[in-house]
């Protein structure tokens, strides 16, 4: 009874601390987002030439100086930089990232409509990553120094050095051209996501195998494992429920860091597999010299990464009892 009472008060205290932490973390994200907006705004300035002229030139006609001056005034390019930044930020906060030169549609709408495809690809990659890395990592830890551990070690070296763009081509050749098990490119049903998602996850699989292995080896040496074994629990329970839970915590933190790698890698994978996601859209925009789209893409991706990292940090705190119990932070 006494124990239950203590437990209740603890969990209430814990949730107060959690909310405090979440608010704190949210406030910390504000200067980062501000920095992101500054760089994204500044990016458009690295383009060679006058934006007004480029905009007019996209029709293929050499513009008159009057027309350029008119567009400059219309775009507010004659105003001081900080005024331009202010206006731009205000519009971006209202989800207005301008109009794409090449399609004539709103950049924000185009990005949002393509984002689900990229998210689907990234989520599938994470699922494949776990399917690949969990069993191998666990086996490597349980049979430490054994043949499975050795093979996984070699595989890790290869997976880190394998260029994703090459793996993608090889998979298309063997999986889609030679045996025709999978569609060559595009997004059409479940089978179409397998090859691109595998390509995306392969490069990271090695890191996760090693991380799960070290985490598990470390956890297996702890006293609570000894006590669990002493209580006569089955080995599957000891590993599956006690050790693994602790071994997976660093995996979650790493996932936050790797999520941005995943989005970066998606650019190449989407291009190879003609996946209708946000990365392919950005690459197409680069070749169409559609600067607003590139700017919007960078801004959007950075905001997504910051948000995911925020969620990962808060999720980590919620999962780890040591952190929940430990300090006030």
């Amino acid at each position, binding site marked *: 009874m006494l124990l239950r009472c203590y437990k209740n008060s603890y969990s209430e205290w814990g949730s107060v601390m959690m909310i405090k932490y979440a608010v704190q973390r949210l406030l910390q994200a504000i200067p980062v987002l501000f920095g992101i907006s500054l760089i994204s705004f500044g990016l458009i300035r690295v383009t060679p030439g006058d934006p007004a002229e480029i905009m007019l030139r996209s029709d293929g006609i050499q513009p008159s100086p009057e027309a350029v001056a008119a567009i400059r005034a219309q775009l507010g390019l004659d105003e001081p930089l900080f005024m331009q930044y202010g206006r731009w930020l205000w519009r971006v906060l209202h989800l207005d990232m301008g109009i794409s030169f090449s399609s004539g549609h709103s950049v924000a709408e185009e990005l949002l409509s393509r984002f689900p495809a990229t998210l689907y690809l990234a989520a599938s990659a994470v699922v494949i990553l776990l399917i690949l890395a969990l069993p191998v990592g666990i086996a490597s830890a349980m049979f430490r120094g054994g043949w499975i551990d050795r093979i996984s070690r070699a595989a890790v070296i290869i997976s880190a050095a394998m260029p994703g763009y090459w793996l993608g081509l090889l998979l298309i050749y063997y999986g889609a051209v030679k045996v025709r098990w999978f569609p060559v490119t595009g997004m059409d049903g479940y089978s179409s996501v397998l090859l691109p998602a595998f390509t995306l996850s392969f490069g990271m699989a090695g890191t996760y195998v090693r991380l799960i292995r070290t985490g598990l080896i470390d956890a297996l040496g702890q006293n609570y494992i000894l006590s669990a074994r002493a209580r006569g629990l089955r080995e599957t329970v000891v590993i599956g429920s006690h050790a693994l839970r602790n071994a997976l915590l660093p995996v979650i933190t790493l996932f936050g860091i790797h999520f941005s790698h995943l989005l970066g890698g998606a650019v190449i994978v989407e291009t190879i597999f003609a996946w209708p996601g946000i990365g392919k859209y950005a690459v197409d*925009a680069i070749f169409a010299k559609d600067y607003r789209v590139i700017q919007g893409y960078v801004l959007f991706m950075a905001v997504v990464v910051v948000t995911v990292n925020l969620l990962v940090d808060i999720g980590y705190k919620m999962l780890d009892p040591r952190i929940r119990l430990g300090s006030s932070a």
Partner: protein
Amino acid sequence: MKKQAENAWQKAFFWIGASIVGGAVLIGLFAPYLMPSDPYLIRLDIRLSPPSLAYPLGTDPMGRCVLSRLIAGTRTSLFYSVLVLGAVLLISVPIGLLAGYAGGRTDHMIMRVIDMVLAFPSLILSLAIAGLLGPSLPNLLLAFVLVWWAGYARIVRGLVLQIKEMDYIRAARACGTSHWQMVLRHIIRNAARPMLVLASLEIGSILLSISGLSFLGLGAQPPIPEWGVMLNDSRAYMQTAPRLMLFPGLAIMTVVTGFNLLGEGLRSADRRGVR
């Protein structure tokens, strides 16, 4: 006993890595003497021909010698990776040193700028900068340097902060060593080893990124012999000449593996304190 075996493995890995990298550097240096024919010479009459004595790996869709282009590509890839790494170090080391050594407000301001750059996914930011500057190899290299200095500067700063706490620094300070002397003689010297290890670990990923964005058409432009460009060129001939996509990929993977093994070897040697 187990520890010894482990060390032996690590040594073996290190030497495998060192020989791959050494071999690649030699190929890059002596490329003009090793190429069986001109990597730029277009001969449409022998396009896509299978391997032969004159063309050991066959010819590409333009009738150029694949082996010669691979060898020339070694030079391109290594040279530009080292160039990017050098430029990144040239920017990030002074900034990191300044932030770590000066501390206080200087450190705070530099770190805010670094945080801003690091908030972006690095590949995406370099892709955007390279795209906005216009697709070309120099622009791509510039984009990488503009993005990657931040990560290194942060690491250098961390190293300096660690070294600053050492007793020998306190002793030097007590002796009245000037700031310049302190940084040049004590801090840089002690930070150099871990930085070298880090650089050797990173050069593989620089190479992968340069080839990757060249593959997308944002870096080296045809006809420059570069592995990523060669891979991209081979895509259209996947059905007729799949061997074309085999070799450049294999080359990238081998060299990157070499650098990774070398870096890992150096790192574990550094940890053991072997000189």
